[in-house]
């Protein structure tokens, strides 16, 4: 197989690597090979953020700075990016404004999480728009600090972003853009030999060719899950095909009746488009992993991974989404709900890959609600997620699509509850409860460390009742707890008796 080596930018220089283990992580490369020990390993699973580094990329003529977890990001995924680490921010004795703000707000104690915090705030500093406390919290949704209680970090973030945001990176942006644009070439990347390689094809034709020739190769999108196979299970991945450079898989098409998201569209990039389908998508996606994970994890990766607790699947099943699968250049369409057959089992043939997901837009009379329950608000796997799409006609429910995650081995629709709701009046609290009662016919959830079966059923009932109550007109402010809820919250009655 032909292809060029790995190329990325670091400290103003082009780094070219012609040989590396395909499963090498950025963190190991930095700490073990480069001796750059400012970036820390806290958990090696992308949950604590101590290893956060920045990948700057050329994206539609703009320079974007994405925080990523170096511990589960593969070295090969750096192709075409500029890698910025904690050591690169200060100039001599002069600290970067973000660093300066953290010092003056007493925002470090033990200091171990601090490099990651600095990098996340560096990315925030380079985002457009004003930064308030909520935005700072979102930017830090993947950074654990066990010492400070975060208040000084949030204060530092808000204060440093309040002024003019200028640093040496903004000054050199035009040059960096040029260099990065040049790196964003049309070549395929192939490092290694037929037994052991890291490949990053540019076209679907090449992707298909690689899949055909190396049927055992592991397809990697964001590596947010595959990364853990490497760090936790010590798996060796001899043949890796990274989808991140396949141009057509990264496309977003906004049709009149549907939104089409390419399989390797990162979650963060999809959020504004999904949010336009319905505001509840925004609130769901805001709680999807962490800031770091959302920049790396992809739509296709999340669906193809088929986790029973993935949050995207129930939402897209409720929307009636259709997967576009490709094998040897031949595409087929498959309703997403039929893709998940049983735990760990999907309707995906050998050599087949996900190209895109087609999400129909809500039409007149359709109402969408998505609610997620987890122990912690940000960056937590749900115990239960429910997504509901209800079509109303003259106050009656014409159709209900109720999909749940966490209630079975796969994301699945509640067909008994759906059947019950058909033709029922939306405004009746009795209807809501009776629909919820049917969930026991639809699901027998498991007990595990996230929740007991009993609680899962209770929560599944609770979110269905709330969703139906909201669709009937109860304001969400009276039915949900929001992260940024104010103390002067207005009370609302009219809900069901609990």
């Amino acid at each position, binding site marked *: 197989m032909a292809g060029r080596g790995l190329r990325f930018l670091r400290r103003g220089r082009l780094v070219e690597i012609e040989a590396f283990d395909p499963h090498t992580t950025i963190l190991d490369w930095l700490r073990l090979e480069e001796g750059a*020990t*400012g*970036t*820390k390993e*806290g*958990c090696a*699973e992308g*949950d*604590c953020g*101590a290893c956060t580094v920045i990948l700057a990329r050329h994206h539609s003529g703009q320079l974007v700075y994405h925080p990523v977890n170096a511990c589960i990001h593969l070295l090969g995924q750096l192709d075409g990016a500029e890698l910025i680490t*904690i*050591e690169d921010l200060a100039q001599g004795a002069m600290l970067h404004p973000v*660093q300066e703000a*953290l*010092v*003056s707000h*007493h925002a*470090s*104690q*033990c*200091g*171990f999480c601090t*490099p990651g915090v*600095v990098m996340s705030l560096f990315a925030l500093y380079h985002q457009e728009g004003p930064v308030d*406390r909520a935005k*700072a*919290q979102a930017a830090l*949704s993947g*950074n654990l600090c*066990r*010492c*400070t*209680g*975060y*208040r*000084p*970090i949030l204060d530092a973030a808000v204060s440093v972003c309040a002024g003019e945001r200028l640093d040496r990176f903004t000054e050199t942006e035009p040059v960096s853009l040029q260099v990065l644009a040049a790196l964003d070439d049309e070549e395929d990347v192939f490092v290694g030999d037929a037994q052991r390689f890291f490949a990053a094809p540019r076209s679907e034709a090449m992707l298909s060719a690689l899949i055909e020739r190396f049927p055992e190769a592991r397809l990697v999108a964001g590596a947010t899950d595959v990364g853990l196979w490497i*760090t936790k299970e*010590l798996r060796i991945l001899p043949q890796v095909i990274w989808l991140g450079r396949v141009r057509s898989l990264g496309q977003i098409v906004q049709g009149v009746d549907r939104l089409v998201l390419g399989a390797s569209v990162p979650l963060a990039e999809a959020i504004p488009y999904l949010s336009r389908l319905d505001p509840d998508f925004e609130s769901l996606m805001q709680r999807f992993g962490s800031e770091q994970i959302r920049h790396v994890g992809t739509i296709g990766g999340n669906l193809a991974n088929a986790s029973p607790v993935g949050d995207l699947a129930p939402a897209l099943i409720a929307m009636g989404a259709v997967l576009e699968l490709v094998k040897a250049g031949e595409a087929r369409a498959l309703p997403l709900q039929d893709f998940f057959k049983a735990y760990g089992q999907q309707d995906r043939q050998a050599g087949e890959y996900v190209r895109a997901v087609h999400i129909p837009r809500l039409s007149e009379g359709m109402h969408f609600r998505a609610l997620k329950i987890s*122990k*912690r*608000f*940000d960056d937590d796997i749900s*115990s239960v997620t429910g997504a509901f799409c209800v079509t109303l006609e003259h106050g009656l429910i014409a159709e209900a699509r109720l999909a749940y995650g966490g209630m079975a081995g796969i994301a699945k629709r509640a067909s008994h509850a759906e059947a019950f709701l058909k033709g029922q009046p939306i405004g009746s609290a009795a209807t809501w409860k009776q629909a919820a009662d049917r969930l026991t016919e639809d699901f027998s959830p498991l007990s595990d*460390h996230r929740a*007991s079966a009993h*609680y899962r059923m209770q929560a599944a009932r609770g979110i269905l009742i*709330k969703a139906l109550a909201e669709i009937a007109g109860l304001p969400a402010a*009276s039915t949900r*707890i929001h*992260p*940024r*809820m*104010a*103390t002067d919250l207005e*009370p*609302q*009655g009219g*809900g069901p008796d*609990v």
Partner: protein
Amino acid sequence: MSETSQSPDGPVTRSPLQEVGPKGHVHQPLPHDSAASHVRGAAPYLDDLRAPSGLLHLAVGGSPVACGRITRLDLVKVEQAEGVVAVLTSNDIPGRNDISLGHGDEPLLGSQTVMFFGQPLFVVVAKTRDLARRAARLAVIEIDAETPLVTIEQAEQQGSKVLPDYHFGVEDNAPPLALADLRLSGQQRIGGQEHFYLEGQIAMAVPGEGREMQLISSTQHPAEVQHCVARVLDLPEALVSCEVRRLGGGFGGKETQATQWAALAALAAHHTGRPCKIRLDRDEDFVLTGKRHDARVDWEVGYSANGQISAIDLNFWVRCGCSADLSQGAVDRMMFHADNAYFLPSARIGSQRLRTHTVSNTAFRGFGAPKAVLAIETVMQAVAAKTGQDPLDVRKVNFYGHNGTLTPYGMQVESSVTGRRIIEQLEKTSDYRAKRQEIARFNAQSTILKKGLALTPVKFGVSFTQTHLNQAGALIHLYPDGSVHLAHGGTEMGQGLFQKVAQIVADELGVPLAAIHHAATRTDKVPNASPTAASASSDLNGMAARNAALTIRSRLATFLSEKFSCSTVEIQFAHGQVRVGEETLSFADVVRMAYQARIQLSATGFYKTPKLDWDRTRKSGRPFYYFVWGAACSEVVVDTMTGENKVLRTDIVQDVGHSLNPALDLGQIEGGFVQGLGWLTTEELVYDQHGRLRTHAPSTYKIPLASDVPDQFNVALWKEPNDEATIYRSKGVGEPPLMLAVSVFCALMDAIGSLAPSKPVHLDAPATPEAILRAVDAMTRPNEEGS
């Protein structure tokens, strides 16, 4: 005292930088000594140190079951694996296979029987960490497995204990309880907590000349590492040293729990003759190291119609895990805090220290006290529900002072007026009464969401309850250029101890902070130091360092008074200069002159806490030098259909004495509160029936994130000088704030209680959405006592 002077410095807070101390460095809000290097990624932790030549790496291999007899430990494949240099088992230990604190119940490497799931049975030494980890997974381990004791109830039924039962207070509480106007009993489960220091356990051993062994360890207790390594390797303690520059967090989790890894590294270095390093991965760290104890508390209380408690039984069943470790101290401290801020006239405080086949539970910030504070505050909530009073009024009527000042263990509470004033100030600044009304209105109108409010106090005793640990040493050298080398026995783990001690020494010597080099903590500089723990490290090490500085300063003053024929009172050390009568010399010149005159320029300092005389056997005396007070008021909202919840606002007033450094103290308060918040809400340790920890990584164990912190978070320092003669009349601040989070738990109970106001709420900790929903269900079920 007038109304305004009740708060000596008023509520300060969000902007400690604007505060100006009286003079010099002490009391100033200076940044952490490593702040600038933290933000640059330039503060080296152990794993960042340049590898010594020939460094080898370790990985542990552990038991696949929690309990049983080892029938086969086949390590052939491990030995043959790529890069492996040695594989060591308990048979390779030259000294004693014992890492316990004298109980003899905890081996370095398990042999014959296993005590908990994952218990290390062997260690692989290989060329890289990756190769060591891969090799460790190749072992063939067969164990004749037995059914493990996992839960508190299983251990209770089997009478399985690590230490004898212990109680204090009245012997027979039945008559006083029988005489009470009203009685109520209840039970509560209180979960443990994983420390989740961001830097995992790590240690490196470097063999020295002859049989010398040098350790670098991320430990809160370097002396214990030294002593344990000497015991394991059968070396004189003098041949072993341990160094710690900084820890990436400790919180009690590296007090005894760091020792095992250092000892394994030393064992490997002993066998290979090469430097050896071990760093646990996060899952191993969760599974192999102890946590905060979990417990069940059974309580019965007698009280009157106004909520005043006349008699109380609090009985704690504590899961200590597979060995004693620090359970004696931690459970004792729990008992010492069962009164929290309340006078309990007829109290019996009991404890059972249960042995289970789970990892040995250990120290964690608060050291037992948080569970006791939660228990008694739960009782306050229940009594308030039953008497129909505002819980704050029940708290006030029971507060130390009016009715009595004697604790159940026989110590007088002399400073309760501080606690009372703090409560009164917080009641005003948090707008408690108005908010109470507003919440009642909200709850009357809101069906699904309910709000709750609670204002809870904390009283925390400072001193190690093992009296002998209340000692500290320091060492100061002066060099002819005027620079100062400072060392003491405390470790820097983020709390800012190094900066506080440097501030003290700078002021005593009258030199700028920049003149002081704060060296790493080393057992060969300051021997036999106590662990950095018990909120007492600034008290102890600060005073020891001050004594060392005073010794040197007094030598210099004596020398100058003779040389310049003046009285020592005419000599002043300030701002890097020394005034001798009319003359002004630079500090460096004075040191140079003193050197020429053969004045000793090195001094040790020592300190032991006065007034302590606790006698555990006689159950009387004074375990604490002083008490720290504080209070928090939290407002929450609860979703009664899912159990989801959020803290809307928290106000805190925390007693810090005459703060050594208000910025660092503020950091301890905010950080402690949030850590306590996690313990009581999102952090849930789940063991399965086989004794396996199912929540062993941040993906499954959820500590607070930035979005979990209340948006309105107002912290005020109460800076009234300590009545006791502590270092600059300051107070310890490390642990007490953690218990301020009990206000959140009580506010959650308050919100749930709004569903059936006269019914006590039965809420277990942590208050996960599931636990809350369980409590909600109990409220709405007819004919059931909530508690």
